[in-house]
């Protein structure tokens, strides 16, 4: 298929269609509204069902319901909307059905602003809602990767019957880049799910619930979830290494938009003979601690660069085993220039 020019948000919509998803429920919020708008136009061409919910609270429960029938389904929102969805995501994780959630992150707590941010890292990677659960979190750094990771997200959601979040900042959602999509997956090609709510014809009724009154049964459920999370941690870690060498002056940790700005700065420093490597996590949960640790041993200095006040740095510290980790970040929707980032790197290398 030919490459076409798409916004990140549109590519997310098209990629979901290619992955065989025909159901979307969502509520408008900037800067992700192109996802529902694209689907509202495109779904009728492929027999998809688009529903505008009355709120994010309703939207997440609608995808919960649709997922109970075993079909592929997703929603997209932005930070404040994701907060509203967190209750439902907890139920979905506990009930163990498959959904994909897209968060095009906007800035600052409260109503904040509509400009790009990475301030929802903790929310996404630390369970997101009440209780004791995990969701897989995938962070693209380009429009093409956003499309690829949407496809992967649906596969992983089915594999683990677990919520999967694709998290990008406003720039990933809004910018345009050429993108190529995989062939269409036929929604009818998916295996029947024996646990799904499809009508109890010729079988015992299926019950999907997150309520378990007996503490022993409930603990067993927690343990089963934990086993699942351990399996995710063992098999689903994804990351990119950039400009890695055996002896680096500095190792940078960045994801999404910040990784691309960092790469520009790293390329320029390379010309100046300064060796700076980049570790870019693609899965924010599970975080590839071991891979990061191996690179950390090859670097003199470490820095985490984020569009937040410092959230992913917690994971970098876990990987660094006590080494000092510097931080550089901007907030409020302000995206640092490559020059700004470069001078931070230089300052650290020379200190």
């Amino acid at each position, binding site marked *: 298929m030919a*490459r*076409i*020019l*798409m*916004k990140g948000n*549109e590519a997310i919509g*098209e990629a979901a269609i290619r992955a065989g998803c025909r159901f979307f429920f969502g509520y408008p919020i*900037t*800067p992700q509204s*192109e996802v529902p708008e*694209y689907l509202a*136009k*495109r779904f009728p061409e492929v027999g998809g069902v688009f529903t505008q919910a009355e709120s994010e609270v309703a939207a997440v429960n609608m995808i919960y319901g649709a997922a109970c029938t075993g079909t592929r389904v997703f929603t997209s929102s932005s930070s404040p909307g994701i907060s509203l969805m967190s209750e439902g995501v907890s139920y979905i994780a506990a009930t163990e059905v498959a959904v994909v959630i897209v968060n095009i992150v906007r800035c600052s707590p409260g109503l904040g*602003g*509509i*400009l790009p941010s990475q301030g929802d890292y903790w929310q996404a990677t630390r369970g997101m809602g009440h209780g004791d659960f995990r969701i897989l979190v995938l962070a693209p750094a380009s429009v093409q990767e956003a499309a690829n990771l949407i496809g992967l997200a649906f596969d992983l959601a089915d594999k683990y019957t677990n919520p999967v979040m694709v998290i990008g900042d*406003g*720039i990933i959602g*809004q*910018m*345009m*880049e*050429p993108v190529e999509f995989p062939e269409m997956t036929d929604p009818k090609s998916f295996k029947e799910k024996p646990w799904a709510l499809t009508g109890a014809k010729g079988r015992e009724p299926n019950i999907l619930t997150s309520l378990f009154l007996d503490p022993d049964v409930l603990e067993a459920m927690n343990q089963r979830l934990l086993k699942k999370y351990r399996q995710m941690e063992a098999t689903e870690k994804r990351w990119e290494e950039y400009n890695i060498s055996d002896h680096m002056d500095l190792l940078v940790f960045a994801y999404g*938009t910040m990784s*691309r*700005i960092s*790469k*520009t700065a790293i390329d*320029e420093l390379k010309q100046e003979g300064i060796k700076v490597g980049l570790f870019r996590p693609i899965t924010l949960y599970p975080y590839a601690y071991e891979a990061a640790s191996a690179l950390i041993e090859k670097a003199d200095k470490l820095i985490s660069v984020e569009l937040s006040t410092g959230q992913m740095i917690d994971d970098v510290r876990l990987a660094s085993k006590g080494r000092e980790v510097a931080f550089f970040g*901007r907030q*409020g*929707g*302000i*995206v*640092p*220039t*490559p*020059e700004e980032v470069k001078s931070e790197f230089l300052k650290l290398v020379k200190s």
Partner: protein
Amino acid sequence: MNLNEDKNSVDDESRDSRPDPRSNQKEVHPGQPLGVAKYHIYTHARHALGGHESVKAIYQKLELLGPLQKRILGFLGNFGSGKTEVAVNFAMQLGLAANIENNGVEGPIRIIDLDIINPYFRSREAAEPLTEAGVEVVMPTGDKFWADLPIILPEVKGLIKRTDGKLILDVGGDDLGARVLSHLNQDFPLENTTLMMVVNANRPFTSDLAGARKVLSELEDAAGLKFGGLVSNTHLMDETSPDEIRRGYEFTKKVSAETGLPVLMVTAEPRLIDNGTNSGIRTEEFDCLLLPLYRFMLPPWRRDSIRSG
């Protein structure tokens, strides 16, 4: 200790330093430093300012194209068709041309950011280079610069009714964005207005003739106004080749044949235009204006992006 007597608690101080939500209501004029405006684009202004030769060439061709001599020139198109880049570049070139004496372009050149749809990548982000090029940018100011609100400034209506200079309209994407014009369409001096549809054949929904025609009629319905021409803006960002420009031009000509609307402009990044060494496209290949298009709406990691300026 009586805690109530501790008047200088951290909490008090911290609250005192909270931002005053009204502090950014003051006017911020384009061209003045916009303070924390970090999403702006300064990049190619200097290139463009130096490029008087191309400006002259453009204007000479412009004279041949009646519809482009109208006072009000509006750019519409579907989402991501490149309306804003085209509008900003065209306004900038006109602004520069107006600075050259006796070449027939009368100022003032104004651009109105009518994008009520998308809070990212709007023409207001190119306010500084536009101002440097002598273009008056009509856009929400102060903290509303960043607002995700459908703001139509009160002066817009007056500017449409004026008779001097040139007015460039950067209209938001799709029929949704074009709705803005329907609320102003009674005020347009139709005999002195040309609305153009910007076509990028690499975008969804306008990648074939039927799609382009559908978008065209949706835009006309929403705006309550008719188009007067087409702009061929087919590209693939950094992956664009000269042949891509030619292919897009052929496609736009087909749209033109079906709709009767003339192709008024074809755009190309300067690197794709023949400079004697690069075997790029040449002006004489096209029966319309070839607009050199400098990219202002660039992602922040691009070294040539605004913030590097």
